[in-house]
Every structure is written in structure tokens, then in C-alpha cells.
């Protein structure tokens, strides 16, 4: 990524921990779209966490085959209309296997969110470690780490992940593997942002004061720099989560990501172009789930960015609704 693009969105550090967090929530709630998105995300997380409960309520599980519900004479189409929709199977069953669709959908949320969140954590930790080390180390350390970062920025995630996922033995748990692959390939941009921000912070007086007081590099990194890095890192992480959700879905769609019997939304779409004529939900459910999740995460990410950006937030005004924002923007342009 070009430095110029990164630099434009490096907000200042919040004043202090507690009031900074409170201010952040106030600014986030001031945005209606972001508030709705946050609600949807919370609901999705809840569904993912409560997946065993929800499926117990239905009386099904995501992996049991139901051959009795499948018409093998017609190539594995579920018996009955709408994909075998019934009181026992709320959303019908999968073609060929007869696995319960509702159960696979809610367990799919676990995989989708779990992989995306965990991969983002890896990316953030790696980016923080490499970015801070490069900025504080300086000299040849900075040179070396920056070159390595450049290489990882240049590696196309899908291509590398596709190739890597295929050569690791199938016995390795796939969701963990997908997480590791995404996390360890796509951390370059966040390292660049962290390095740039650390270099800025390093020049500030309070960091120099800590240095002169004789604190070591570790203490300075942890106590003086990390709070200042929080805003850009959280902002970028909130952009990464939906990207990671799409990546997992794409890899599973291609058949190299999460594999059956573990359900994943991307994987559920693999044969959708064949089966959608039997019942539209084979296409609509996983596609809709992916769309809503990525959309909610993206809108929430935008809201987080606005809430953490002092320039945007001052325009937003605390408690201001959408109309106020639009009017201010119009006044500016008039």
C-alpha cells in the first residue's frame, strides 16, 4: 500500500484510557447505521456462540446424514417441496446427504466468525510486533523488517492460501489451518501502518521523556506507545474482519478451505449452481448469510473509523443524528 494512503488515516491517540473508551462509544452510537450494524454483529456472534443450543431446540445436528429424506432415484434431491422443509428441519435438508440445513447454517456462523476473528488477532499481533520493532529498532533492523513487510504486502493472499492449503495433510484441523494461513500471509499492511504511527509517536515529547528517565524499550513500547497505536490498529482491524470472512468463504468455496463434515457458508455455495433449481435456499441462505455478515461488519468498521478519527468526530458532534451531519456537509460545500 502506498504510504500516502496510510498516512491520511492516522488519527491521534485518545486522551486517556477510560474517558477515551467512553467517548468512543458515544461517537459510535451517534451514527445510526453503525449502531444498527453493531446490533446485527452482536446477534450473529450470539448465534455463533449459541449454535449447539439453537440446534438442540430444533432437535438436529449439522453432521448427521438423513438418507431417508433423499430421493436417490432423482440424483439426491430432497423429498418434498422446498428442499424437504418441515417442522423437523426448519430450513430443509442438504441434497445428497440430507444433513440439516438450519444446523449447518448456524454452525457455519461459528466457522465464519471464528476464523475471521482469530485470523485478525494473528494479523494484528504480528503487525504490531513487526511494525513496533522496525520503528524502534531503526537502522538495519528497520531495513530488514520493512523489506520483509513489503514482500508480504506483495504476496496475493488467495493464490498463496490456495497453494498452501493444498499441500498440508488433510488430517490437520481445517478451520485452524485456514486461520493460520490467512493470519500469517496478510499482515503486511497493518505492520506498515503500525511502523508509520510508531515513528510519529517516537518523536513526541512524552516518549522522549520516558526514554530519558531510563525506561527500557519494552516498557516504552508497552506503556507509552501501545495506547497511541490503539486507534489506527483498531480501525484497520475492523476493516480486516470482513475481508477475512470473505477470504475464508472463498477458500472453502474452492474446496481447499473448511471441508465437510465441518460446515462453512462458502462451502455450502460450492454446488449451489447445480442445486438451486431444486430449492432456492441452497443459494439464498449461505449467500444471504455472507452478505449480511460482511455488510454489517463493514458498516460497523466504517463507524469505528469515524468514531476514532478526531476530524470526522468533531464534524459529527456528540449526539448528532444523520440530518445534522448531512447539513454540515452541505454547508461546507455551499
Amino acid at each position: 500500500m502506498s504510504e500516502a494512503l496510510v498516512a491520511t488515516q492516522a488519527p491521534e491517540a485518545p486522551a486517556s484510557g477510560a474517558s477515551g473508551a467512553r467517548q468512543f462509544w458515544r461517537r459510535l452510537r451517534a451514527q445510526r447505521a453503525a449502531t444498527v450494524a453493531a446490533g446485527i454483529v452482536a446477534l450473529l456472534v450470539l448465534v455463533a456462540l449459541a449454535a449447539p443450543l439453537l440446534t438442540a431446540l430444533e432437535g438436529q445436528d449439522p453432521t448427521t446424514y438423513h438418507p431417508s429424506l433423499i430421493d436417490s432415484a432423482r440424483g439426491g434431491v430432497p423429498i418434498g417441496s422446498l428442499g424437504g422443509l418441515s417442522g423437523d428441519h426448519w430450513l430443509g435438508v442438504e441434497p445428497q446427504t440430507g444433513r440439516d440445513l438450519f444446523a449447518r447454517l448456524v454452525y457455519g456462523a461459528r466457522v465464519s466468525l471464528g476464523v475471521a476473528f482469530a485470523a485478525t488477532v494473528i494479523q494484528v499481533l504480528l503487525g504490531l510486533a513487526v511494525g513496533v520493532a522496525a520503528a524502534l529498532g531503526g537502522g538495519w533492523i528497520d531495513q530488514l523488517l520493512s523489506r520483509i513487510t513489503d514482500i508480504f504486502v506483495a504476496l496475493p493472499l488467495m493464490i498463496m492460501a490456495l497453494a498452501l492449503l493444498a499441500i498440508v495433510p488433510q488430517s490437520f484441523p481445517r478451520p485452524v489451518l485456514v486461520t493460520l494461513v490467512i493470519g500469517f500471509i496478510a499482515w503486511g499492511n497493518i505492520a506498515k501502518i503500525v511502523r508509520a504511527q510508531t515513528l510519529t509517536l517516537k518523536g513526541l515529547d512524552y516518549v522522549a521523556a520516558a526514554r530519558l528517565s531510563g525506561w527500557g524499550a519494552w516498557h516504552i513500547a508497552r506503556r507509552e506507545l501501545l495506547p497511541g497505536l490503539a486507534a489506527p490498529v483498531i480501525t484497520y482491524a475492523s476493516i480486516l474482519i470482513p475481508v477475512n470472512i470473505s477470504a475464508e468463504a472463498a477458500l472453502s468455496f474452492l474446496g481447499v478451505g473448511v471441508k465437510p463434515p465441518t460446515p462453512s457458508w462458502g462451502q455450502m455455495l460450492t454446488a449451489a449452481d447445480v442445486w438451486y433449481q431444486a430449492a432456492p435456499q441452497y443459494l439464498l441462505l449461505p449467500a444471504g448469510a455472507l452478505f449480511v455478515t460482511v455488510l454489517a461488519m463493514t458498516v460497523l468498521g466504517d463507524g469505528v473509523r469515524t468514531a476514532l478519527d478526531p476530524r470526522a468526530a468533531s464534524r459529527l458532534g456528540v449526539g448528532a443524528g444523520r440530518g445534522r451531519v448531512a447539513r454540515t456537509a452541505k454547508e461546507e460545500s455551499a
Partner: protein
Amino acid sequence: MTGFGGFLLRRTIGTLATLLAISVIVYVVFYVTPGNVAQITCGPRCSPEQVHQVALQLHLDDPLYVRYWHFLQGLVVGQDYSTGTSVEHCSAPCLGLSYQTDQQVLGIILTRLPVSLSLVFGAMVLWLVLGVGTGVLSAWRRGRLTERVLTALTLAGWATPVFVIGLVLMIVVCGELQLLPFPQYVKLTDDPEQWAWNLLLPWLSLALIEAASFARLTRASMLETLAEDHIRTFRAYGVGEGAIVGRHALRGALAPVIALNANNFGSAVGGAVLTETLFGLPGLGQELVHAVSVVDLPVVVGMVLVIGFFVVLANAVADVLYAVADRRVVLT
């Protein structure tokens, strides 16, 4: 060295160094495989002797650095391969032979490359026009209904994975409405019209996603430029709003668009893999998915390197264009 020439030279050296580093990483990662490549290549019914024979033939018993050195040699001066009965010469730049078919990897890539280039560059034209157009329009009509609709559409495009858009387009346009036949690749040199019609849906699927990020960036960047002093001066001189938005503000917004185009090239290539697989286009992506499924390592490594080459090249070109487009950029 200073000036533009020096900048170009440093960029070229840096790009070559990055490519070399990528080749080392890719080579090491893929050839330190836990699986038994010789067994897989030979097939499940091979005897241990046959497997050993294959391992010898593929030089799988040599230390890794020796094999990498041979690989580099092949790239620079070419390489001779014994295929058991005859010796095949693979001239530079040689990426090795396929474990499966004994074909030259470069040859496989070159036959597939036109398909992928058709897809990516056609889609690129589309996403730049759509994305920048949407961004300009929504910056111009800011605060109006047009902007809200465009913003919502952009967000929807942004949030839909490329294979979902492709899948829905294919099912609706080809399956339900039967407006177009299911895409089949036709060579540009054979029939340009059929080439374009068959690529229309793949282009759209790839372009709609990418266009969304360009629309967002163009809009933000235009709004920023529109708030600058020189634009106010233009307004004071009575320059029309259309000319201000279309000519002056757009110029200021162009540099970040160029940068993003290169930056997104990698993700677009990833999207192209999905699009090719989905629509059954015989491009690099489809071959990569196939090579991966049969663990044909020379093809996988060659493919990743060639794609990496294009991505790194796109980044380097963008850096140069960026410097040309925006004179404020300091050349380092």
C-alpha cells in the same frame, strides 16, 4: 543518484530483489512439504522401487538449496530434463516440468495467460469506469438522493464476495432469464465479438466488487479536493460546477486512484481465480486450482511466481505513475 532516472533504477533493483525473495520463500515453503511428492506423482499403486525411481528422476533426494540453485539456473540459462527415454531441453526462462504431464511449466502458463489477461484487463476497464464514475457522481450530488442510492449500492457491492455475485449473475442471467448462454471462452483472435459476449458476466462479477472500493476512494478524495482553497478560487472566478468537479477536482483525486489500482491488483488476481473456476474459464486460476489438487508442485510454484511477478510489477508501475501524476510526491 538523484532525479527521475535514479528513482527508476532504484525501483527496478528493489522490484527484482523482492521477486528473488518471493521465489526463495515460495520455493522453500512448497518443497518442504509434509506429503510424499514422489508417491503422489507416481500414483497410489506404485511399488516402493518405482516411487524411489520417481524421486530420483525428480531430484527429490537432493538437498533443498541444490534444487533451488538448479531452479535458478533453469530460469537464467535453461535446463535439460531427462524424461526417462529422451532428454528435453527447456530453454530460459525455464520454470521446470510438470510432474504430471512432463510439459514445460512456462508453456502451460503461456497458453493460459491470454484468458486471465482478457479477464483481468477487461474487468479493470470496467471497474475503473464504473468506480470512478460512481465516485465522481456521488461527490457531485452529495447530500442528494442520488448520492444515498449510490452509497448504498457501493456498500452492497463492497460487501458481496466475488463468487457470490458471479454465482447469482450466472444463475439469474444464464439460468433463469436465459439472456446469455453459460460462458465459454472464445479466443479474441478467433471471434472478438463472441470473446466479449462470453466474458461479459465474468467481467461484471469481478468489476462490481473492485468498482466499489474505487467509488469509495474517489468520492472521499474528491470531497477532500473540493474543500481545498484553489477550488474556492475557481468558484469565485465563476467556473461552472460541472467543470470544477469533472476537471479540477478529478485531477486531484486521480493519484490515489492509481495507487489503489495497483494495490488492488493482487486481490483482483485472487478474484480472477474464483471467477475462472466459477465460469469454467481455462485461465491461470483454473489451472492453479487443478495443479493444487494433484500436488503438481512445479506448476504451483511457477504459477505463484508468475502471478507474484505481475503483482509486484503492478506495484512498481503504480509507484512511478503516482510520482508522475502527483508532483508533490518525494522520490526516494
